[in-house]
């Protein structure tokens, strides 16, 4: 099942809007900085990738804003941006559009306020919108309602892999007759309680300087920085996209594969075999050989162990090539946005293909040894026809997506 990406909507630490995001990446601007709003030092961290230029009032109507969390504001904004980019308006058939987003942690900040009210002042302090603002389906439901999309909609949760998995599930929706699906997702876990929860993973960097904090594939890797935001994309069945005269095709979702380590509730499997299998499944699904892949956009967890496993998985699949496969980790510029991050990486991969430019990995000065892998340090010019995007979710989720710049059969 091939789907075309016809619209991108980005709300990320790098910027609001797809071009703002791309320009920030190409300029090598750090979107990671000191956490604003409160002092997080008690959690042993000081940095995050916050979406600083986001004004919800520009994107969300007042009556909708009061009943939703920041995470949903970002989804509502990204969904609008994606539809505008695609020049997509709800068709006459109300069931022809679906909203299938990934979620990670729900409406954190909204919920912390309400639960504080409950415990400090009693049940009557809880507002009428708590029941619809914090649960994981809130963003999908609100986008569907605001935009009038009645197709089979869904919400999947697989931590950081969610953004890719929502695209995988959208293919099943499309296969069963719904031609257009909004996919991807956003995340906003920046309030104290959500940050504390994330900090208990032991995987957050305690560094205080952005250039030392989140360094995937670097010998100095010491954990990751959390971020917020993400991306929503419109994917369409090719015939339907053509029929409505879609003005742009960013690329084709050519293949997808997902596996689970099933090894341990926290620790990754020590052999990366299931991660490699997810990549092979996606390549086989797309009918693409490892030699045809021009770039891998990596998960880039930023801890030495997880980075080594990712490179082992990539090496296992691509090690037999004549030339090492280029690998980059653009999340290093934004922090890890949980479900939003892998969706944002898909948008980044499509931008890279459009312009033939590979964004480098932030501050990758001392790359780890990686046989058969060409770790991209500085931004480089390179024609990209086929890109693989990888994502992992805490606990052992492995997902892989194959994107093609020129859809198969597009010229036929």
């Amino acid at each position, binding site marked *: 099942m091939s789907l075309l990406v016809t619209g991108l909507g980005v709300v990320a630490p790098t910027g609001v809007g797809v071009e703002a995001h791309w320009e920030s990446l190409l300029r090598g601007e750090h979107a990671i900085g000191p956490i604003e709003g409160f002092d997080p030092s008690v959690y042993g961290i000081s940095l995050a990738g916050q979406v600083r230029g986001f004004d919800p009032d520009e994107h969300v109507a007042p009556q909708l804003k009061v009943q939703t969390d920041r995470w949903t504001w970002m989804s509502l904004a990204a969904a609008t941006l994606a539809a505008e980019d695609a020049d997509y308006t709800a068709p006459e058939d109300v069931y022809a559009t679906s909203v299938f987003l990934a979620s990670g942690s729900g409406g954190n900040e909204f919920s912390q306020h309400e639960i504080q009210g409950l415990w400090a002042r009693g049940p009557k302090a809880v507002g009428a919108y708590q029941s619809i603002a914090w649960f994981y389906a809130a963003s999908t439901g609100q986008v569907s309602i605001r935009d009038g999309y009645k197709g089979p909609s869904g919400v999947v949760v697989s931590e950081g892999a969610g953004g890719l998995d929502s695209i995988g599930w959208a293919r099943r929706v499309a296969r069963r007759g719904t031609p257009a699906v909004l996919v991807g997702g956003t995340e906003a876990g920046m309030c104290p309680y959500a940050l504390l929860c994330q900090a208990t993973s032991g995987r957050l960097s305690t560094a205080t300087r952005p250039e030392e904090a989140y360094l995937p594939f670097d010998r100095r890797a010491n954990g990751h920085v959390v971020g917020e935001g993400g991306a929503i994309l419109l994917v369409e069945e090719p015939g339907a996209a053509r029929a409505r005269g879609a003005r742009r095709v960013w690329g084709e979702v050519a293949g997808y594969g997902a596996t689970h380590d*099933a090894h341990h509730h926290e620790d990754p499997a020590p052999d990366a075999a299931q991660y490699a299998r997810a990549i092979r499944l996606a390549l086989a699904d797309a009918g693409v050989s490892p030699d045809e892949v021009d770039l891998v956009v990596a998960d880039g967890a930023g801890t030495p162990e997880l980075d080594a496993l990712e490179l082992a998985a990539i090496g296992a699949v691509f090690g037999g090539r004549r030339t090492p496969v280029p690998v980059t980790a653009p999340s290093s510029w934004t922090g890890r946005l949980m479900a939003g991050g892998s969706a944002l990486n898909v948008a980044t991969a499509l931008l890279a293909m459009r312009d033939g430019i590979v964004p480098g990995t932030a501050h990758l000065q001392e790359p780890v040894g990686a046989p058969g892998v060409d770790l991209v340090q500085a931004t480089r010019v390179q024609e990209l026809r086929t890109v693989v995007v990888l994502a992992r979710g805490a606990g052992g989720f492995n997902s892989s997506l194959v994107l093609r710049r020129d859809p198969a059969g597009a010229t036929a």
Partner: protein
Amino acid sequence: MSAERRRVVVTGIGVVAPGSMGREGFWEMITAGRTATRRISFFDPARFRSQVAAEVDFDGRKLGLTAQEVHRNDRFVQMALVAADEAVADSGLRFGVGGTGSDAVDAPDPDRVGVTLGTAVGATMRLEQEYVSVSDAGKHWLVDPRYASRFLAHALVPSCGATELAVRFGAHGPATVVSTGCTSGIDSVGYGSQLVEDGDADVVIAGASDAPISPISMACFDTIRATTDSNDDPEHASKPFDARRNGFVMGEGAAVLVLEELEHARRRGAEVYCEVTGYASRCNAFHMTGLKPDGTEMAEAIDQALDQGRIDPAEVGYVNAHGSGTKQNDRHETAAVHKSLGSAADRVAMSSIKSMVGHSLGAIGSIEIAATALAVQRGVLPPTANYEVPDPECDLDYVPKVAREQKVDVALSVGSGFGGFQSAIVLASPTRRTE
């Protein structure tokens, strides 16, 4: 899609439900028409509008979980693990024994086993308990990390539930948590079926779990008056389709099904409860909590789900209702069934087990699918307890109070939830006659 569609059957069922133990206890209870709703015992509900719930007397340690599994997991994960253990044992599948020896026929390829777990609110109970400590009962916005458990990251993101199941059974296929509010438990089984149909798995551990009986969940439904205030008569508080209904009763629990590709099940001679012949969902794009009385989008989901299995509406013998017991839901759903089944609606039996086990948000969809599968297998329809006073707007046969012996070839289970989600799944008897 290929001409030979891969077919999906249910070969194992496990249930953790209020008022009972395991699948058979659950079945005995709901066919006896016994209710498990009671005054909340988990905390003092005196300050809450709704003070009743259907609680599970659950002790993970006594049901086979290790001390560490209990320590690191929220109740929703614990209940999912227990339900999954029962479902897997019931299926006869043997995980983790390799592919040799006399057990080989029942040992699925681990790479071909998937997991789809539904939950509406995930680890909300654990998150609230921990919040109380780190905030000192709401005193501090800047919560104190010195009082935090190290498993909070596990609790924050509900995909921990799918991970725990995958690890337990060595399932290396696609795994996900499905979180579409109160339709999560239908959607997770629907997605699991799609994994099998699409050839991405041969076996899927599919189900749902929720444990929302905590102050924050009760408070948020209090404020919108979605839950009942029949506090003086907990046993009769859940009254779906009855004219006196006044909101749902919060519940908790889990159900897990083993879904299997038909030929895979046949090869090993597995006992089959039923076939999943169709699943569909639609959104109403109307309101996060409100429902228009016409039931249009739910009817569309039902139509699509029936159509996938090429099933005529007249063949549907039983509808396991969403039947939450709110004014608007039961009217909405009755209209949807009329719309989809047409004149056959006058003959169909429809009941709501929420009258007995309450509304466990995302979990209930899978618990109701379990009930529906058992009804198809055993030819007994569970009743709607507490149904006494008919409502002119709810004019179907709701199987009042007493279970009914009735052979059913095709049954439907439907759900509706916050966010506008509407889902339907169709189960058919393996002995159903088709032309």
